[in-house]
């Protein structure tokens, strides 16, 4: 399924500057992700996580710098990148089923004027099977649970058999069971040789699920194994607040003191119909 497995980086970002109007969001981001890894990008709101993803996808034009996907410019590599947007930005009342959404993952590679073939339908079904949604594939997306919604977006991203996956906040607002379910799927994908880059606010999720952590705040503050990177110094440089890190079983766990996440969580819950 994955065509080239050369020792080239799955994703290489070099000196990337990007922003909106005249305000820079990314100020010289450089980053190398090896194939077959899960990388967690962490940083506070506005630190440039989504902007970085959009620049990699070619959805916004960077001011400077370049992005290579498997050694080639990102302009002609859309088919090899699977993207999962933040769940809040998706219209869950749109009258399509899980199957329809997974099939949309094939549309880009089909090009204009061509209808999905049996092969495209099979790829979509296979992606739904992989994320454990085969039995709800005929349900409207609005009828899916929070965890299922996340997985249907993942199935859409997987349907084109991308070698690199960019997941924007896949864990946000999920309960522990649903998070673990998603992490298991991501580990399966990694074992197939796929590369996963995901943004998250959840530091413990990076500690437990990711091979590398990338601390982002306009630029890369630190990149490395979670237990090396998630130190008090790096995290306070990234988040600008004091964080307590606890090292346990060789993993780092971080606790935020000064931020109160509950109101935001409640908001997210309220937004679900």
């Amino acid at each position: 399924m994955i065509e080239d497995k050369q020792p080239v980086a799955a994703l290489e970002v070099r000196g990337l500057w990007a922003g909106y109007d005249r305000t820079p969001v990314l100020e010289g981001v450089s980053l190398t992700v090896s194939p077959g890894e899960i990388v967690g990008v962490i940083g506070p709101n506005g630190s440039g996580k989504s902007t970085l993803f959009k620049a990699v996808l070619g959805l916004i034009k960077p001011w400077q710098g370049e992005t290579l996907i498997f050694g080639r410019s990102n302009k002609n590599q859309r088919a090899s990148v699977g993207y999962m947007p933040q769940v809040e930005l998706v219209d869950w009342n749109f009258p399509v089923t899980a199957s329809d959404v997974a099939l949309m993952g094939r549309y880009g590679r089909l090009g204009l004027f061509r209808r999905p073939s049996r092969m495209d339908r099979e790829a979509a079904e296979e992606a739904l099977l992989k994320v454990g949604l085969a039995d709800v594939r005929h349900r409207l997306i609005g009828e899916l649970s929070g965890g299922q919604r996340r997985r249907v977006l993942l199935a859409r991203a997987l349907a084109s058999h991308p070698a690199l996956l960019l997941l924007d906040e896949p864990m946000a607002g999920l309960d522990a069971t649903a998070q673990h379910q998603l992490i298991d799927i991501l580990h399966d994908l990694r074992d197939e040789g796929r590369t996963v880059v995901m943004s998250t606010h959840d530091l413990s999720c990076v500690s437990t699920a990711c091979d590398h952590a990338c601390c982002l705040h306009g630029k890369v503050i630190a990149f490395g194994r979670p237990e090396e990177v998630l130190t008090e110094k790096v995290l306070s440089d990234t988040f600008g607040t004091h964080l307590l890190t606890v090292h346990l079983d060789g993993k780092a766990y971080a606790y935020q003191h000064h931020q109160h996440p509950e109101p935001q969580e409640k908001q997210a819950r309220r937004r679900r119909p």
Partner: protein
Amino acid sequence: MDFITEPFDFAFMQRAFIAAGFAAIACAVVGTYVVLKGLAFMGDAIAHSSLTGMAAAFVLGGSAFLGALAWVVPASLAITYISRRGRLMMDTSIGIIYAGGLALGIIIISRVSNYTADLFSFLFGNVLAVSWGEIIGIGVVAAVVIATVFIFYKELLFTAYDETMAAASGVPVRLVQYMLPLLLGVTTVAAVKTVGIVLVLALLVIPAATGILLVRRFLAIMGVSVATAIVTTVVGLYLSFHLDLPSGPAIVLVAVGLFAVAMTVSPSSGILRRGLASDARQRPFEVS
């Protein structure tokens, strides 16, 4: 039996059925996107701005239909263009086209003395006076609209569902961003003769809204929307003929009536179902 066949004894009624039918089908197809994407204001605006084209054609002695068509193409494209270039909200650029086109149209038509009768027929439609030439125009527009929706089905669907994901997948989103207002624009022109500038909105939103209440999937919604639109125009024209009602408003009121029925019996949000805990859309989430 006379009740059914009598209108067909009159050539003007035959023409009215054909013209209104074509217009309603095109509106019902495009209306599905309008309702799902919240583009009602855009449809209303393009219809109103088309007065400029109709007025100019009227003053110059040309066909109001072709004048409107010639006007809505740049006007529709301008909506997306202004909003993109000026980084303005879509409804802001829609407002500019709406008011600008309407104002210019009124200025142009006011150059003709005794213009109120003609203005009235532009605003409220006069399908009973439709000519064969106009029917051909309406038919061609409807055919082009339906063919475009068919050919670009997957691009329109994906972009309507989620622009960002569609763009990330390599779907030419920019193309669709210009195509949808254009489709909407030419569709309103096809419908203006039937219900008039002021009531085009009804044919765009009411059949599709009826579809959303009755069925759940995208294509089914479009299908019910088309069926509703056809029933609406036929019944509306019968009522107009037998009760001597103005045709456009009669059609619109039938549409509203069908919508009210759908609202009552809808399986998802119907008034009759309220209280029964069978509402799928509001079913509490199961543990996944």
